[in-house]
């Protein structure tokens, strides 16, 4: 069971923020070597219980830390991220490190190149740390679909951390990294962030390059940060944005942003939308009460709370499971046992090579989604499913665009329930899919959104508040979230491990 943290816990390096740590590094009070060693020590202390990682390389991290200290000593520090250990979800390519996507299909695969967002982190001097557990190929909401092991929620080790970026969320909550990267296709950053009591955000589609992010659903996937604070998330986002010539879908923000400056200077009050469709059936009463309390707080600060309608919300989950699985069925076709993925020893011709390798290499949920995606694209069904779903997607976006003519940001719960117990939903895929009901439409619309800790249930499980911004509206989104965070102490609290 969880407890509220002690202040002694808070002074530990592994619980501090990028903002605090970079100040200490600059002031010479701390070295990256010390910081990284603290992270390694913490990981070794708690990892047997949390299991956030698939693997990590202490020697490599310490070497990067030493290089950071050397840069700083030579007066060549690279900025606020220099020397900060950042964990990487196992779906992002890091040169010469395993890239498994928590799957047996890529058990022995080592990436020969860095993802573009990782290149940016290296250019910022960050210490790239470990391979974080996830649902296999990013398909899941609990990290129980990992082919290696499941990750525990640090607030209650019997419960799941959420997914698919469960390892990334748990690592920040447990102090095994100062920040981590995850990926979000239907809520895979925001939902685990809410369930683990940390900050997690997904940028506007296209802001962070997808080159080096193993594709699940190309038109929905985005990389994003997990951090202890909203300001830390802003620092990480700032370091990773920019049009990448290697990703045709990446885009430069229309106006050059400064996220940290914005969240400090923008004080509101704001016009905040609350979509009536998001508070209907299926929401846990404690979550509902908590979010309503959060909304009341904004109102008490002078914000105008506007009742908005997103009428096509009820279609978001079905549309997502058509579009995302269709794209995934095609994106995962490359895993065929020919070049670099698992190859069955039982095959004796091309067809059996493909079918046996894929049969052996993929887990059940991945297979389920590939079959579904293949079906909705198949001859005779394309118009009724895929094409129709894409049309409805336009309507979902139009709902948001209409709402944003009236408001600056939209507030919703991130997850309809707090963390559930391991095994509770793993036999019921549809129940699992509904974990993402509040996050999914944001990906379909390509909008930015952030989950910020908003409190705890009676039994001490974290709850998250989601703030959705306009396209390229991260500055307002951060400001709205930051204001809430600074007025409460939820991000100070850490699980007892």
């Amino acid at each position: 069971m969880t407890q509220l943290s002690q202040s002694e816990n808070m002074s530990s390096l592994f619980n501090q923020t990028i903002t605090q740590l970079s100040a200490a590094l600059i002031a010479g009070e701390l070295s990256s070597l010390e910081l990284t060693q603290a992270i390694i020590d913490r990981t070794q202390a708690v990892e047997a219980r949390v299991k956030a990682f698939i693997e990590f390389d202490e020697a490599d991290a310490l070497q990067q830390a030493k290089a950071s200290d050397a840069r700083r000593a030579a007066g060549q520090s690279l900025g606020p991220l220099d020397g900060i250990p950042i964990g990487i979800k196992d779906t992002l390519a890091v040169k010469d490190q395993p890239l498994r996507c928590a799957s047996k299909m890529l058990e022995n695969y080592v990436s020969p190149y860095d993802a573009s967002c990782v290149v940016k982190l290296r250019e910022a001097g960050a210490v790239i740390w470990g391979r974080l557990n996830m649902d296999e190929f990013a398909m899941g909401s609990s990290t129980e679909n990992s082919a290696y092991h499941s990750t525990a929620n640090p607030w209650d080790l019997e419960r799941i951390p959420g997914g698919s970026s469960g390892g990334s969320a748990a690592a920040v909550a447990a102090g095994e990294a100062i920040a981590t990267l995850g990926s979000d296709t239907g809520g895979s950053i925001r939902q685990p962030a809410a369930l683990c009591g940390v900050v997690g955000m997904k940028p506007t589609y296209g802001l962070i390059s997808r080159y080096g992010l193993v594709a699940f659903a190309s038109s929905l996937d985005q990389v994003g940060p997990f951090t202890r604070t909203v300001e830390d998330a802003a620092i990480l986002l700032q370091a990773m944005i920019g049009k990448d010539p290697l990703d045709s879908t990446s885009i430069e923000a229309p106006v050059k942003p400064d996220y940290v400056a914005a969240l400090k200077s923008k004080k509101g009050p704001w016009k905040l939308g609350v979509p009536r469709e998001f508070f209907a059936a299926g929401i846990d009463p404690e979550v509902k009460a908590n979010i309503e309390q959060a909304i009341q707080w904004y109102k008490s600060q002078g914000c105008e709370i506007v009742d908005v309608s997103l009428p096509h919300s009820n279609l978001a989950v079905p549309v997502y499971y058509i579009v995302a699985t269709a794209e995934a069925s095609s994106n995962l076709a490359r895993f065929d046992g020919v070049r670099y993925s698992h190859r069955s020893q039982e095959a004796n011709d091309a067809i059996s090579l493909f079918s046996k390798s894929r049969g052996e290499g993929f887990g059940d949920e991945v297979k389920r989604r590939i079959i579904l995606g293949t079906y909705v694209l198949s001859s005779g069904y394309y118009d009724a499913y895929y094409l129709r779903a894409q049309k409805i997607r336009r309507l979902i976006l139009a709902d948001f665009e209409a709402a944003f003519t009236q408001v600056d940001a939209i507030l919703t719960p991130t997850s309809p329930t707090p963390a559930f117990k391991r095994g509770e939903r793993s036999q019921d895929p549809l129940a699992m899919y509904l974990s993402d009901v509040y996050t999914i439409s944001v990906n379909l619309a390509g909008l930015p959104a952030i989950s910020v800790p908003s409190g705890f249930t009676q039994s001490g499980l974290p709850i998250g508040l989601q703030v959705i911004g306009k396209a390229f509206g991260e500055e307002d989104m951060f400001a709205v979230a930051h204001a809430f965070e600074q007025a409460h102490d939820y991000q100070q609290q850490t699980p007892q491990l």
Partner: protein
Amino acid sequence: MQYEAVIGLEIHVQLKTRTKMFTAAPYNYGAAANTLTDAVVLGLPGSLPVLNHSAIEKCVQLGHMLDCEIAEVCKWDRKNYFYPDSPKNYQLTQNEQPLCIGGRLEIELPGPSRNVEGAHRWVTLNRIHLEEDPGKLTHEAFDTLIDFNRAGVPLAEIVTEPDMSSSEEAVAFLNALRNLIIYGNISDCDMEKGQMRCDANISIRPLGSQKLGTRTEMKNLNSISNVRASIEYEIERQTEILEAGGSIVQETRRWDVDQAISFSLRSKEEAHDYRYFPDPDLVPVQLDRTRVAELKAALPERPFDKQRRFQTKFELPYTLTSVLCPTRELCQFFEDAVALHPAPKAIANYITNDLLRELSAGSEHGASALAVNDCQLTPAHIANLVQIIDAGLISKQIGKEVFTEMFKTAEMPEQIVERLGLKQSSDSDEIEALCRAAIAGNAKAVAQYQAGNEKALNALKGPVMKATQGKANPALLHQLLKQLID
């Protein structure tokens, strides 16, 4: 019952770009296996395609040369199928919105003989679109080897309407297409290197019928002779089936070169469902109309337009244009030479006979023929040679010798004439004296000539030419001889 054949072709042409369709990996034929790859070519996890703009431009040029409409917007689709040569197990192609729409190609059918120009007609096209090539499989006894060097190379797929009715027309189409594409510097179209590949769709129907019969698709024909042979075989095969009262199965067939038969690959029921959908990693392409117009204005003259112009302006006969026109560099060489000395027929003759002979001399021993732009001769050389012959400096016969020497040393003709002392002799006295000696030495020939045999004169010319080392002015010699013995 008389049947007529209906044939449509799909031709894949590798575009002559420096790098591949969706990545900066380079391409060149013959590199060591799997050395022209990168993360995108191999479909490594996390890799993404990026459009090669020069491939778009080459395809726009191709579309212009084939009178296509260039789309305002075109986009990319995924064609999903599993095959070991396909790194992503989908091919990026253009299913719904191709780059070029419609179009036509002028073809020339063979005439009654090689020296007589055949009829021209237009073959209608349906579309041209861009896509990426898969890798190359080599089948060994127990293994299949895969080389991904070719994977990702830009292909233009040209689809004709079912507008041809014989193997002859199909072959004429392919030849005309090759020449046109090479003219436009769009591809080298070397079928042996796989730079141009052809699929043929063939059906037959009762003569005069408007309804299309069931068609079969013949895949991956990699030489023009295979195209001819497979089409003829297929027409015969289908005719036999229909005449026996059977019906044609719609299927894909493969041509077996060794046995000269076709066999079924897969039937319609087993046909792939490609599950086409728009590629979400690439954005639609908007074609800038100004640039499209610029590319159109910069096009070279088309081969048959050039042929007509050479026939009209330079009055070249078909026997010369049929050899000259297929090679753009040769035509340029010709026109440059004519600009220096206006004797088009003579210049064309030197190019099509002597120059081409010398250029291909090396290829007898396995090397490929030299290209006209790679040899040492310039248009000025040929122009000068014809000029000094026309001026009477040397005879045509000597001219042949000068040409051979000129090709070796690249000296100007006048230099060679000077150096080897080949100047024509028009010394009447000298020649007359030699004629008298020849006549005196060959009474039999004189008698034959006087009896009416014109050719007997050659026996008298011989010794004179020999005595003058071939330099006697032939016209003068002829005139003087006749004067003496007529």
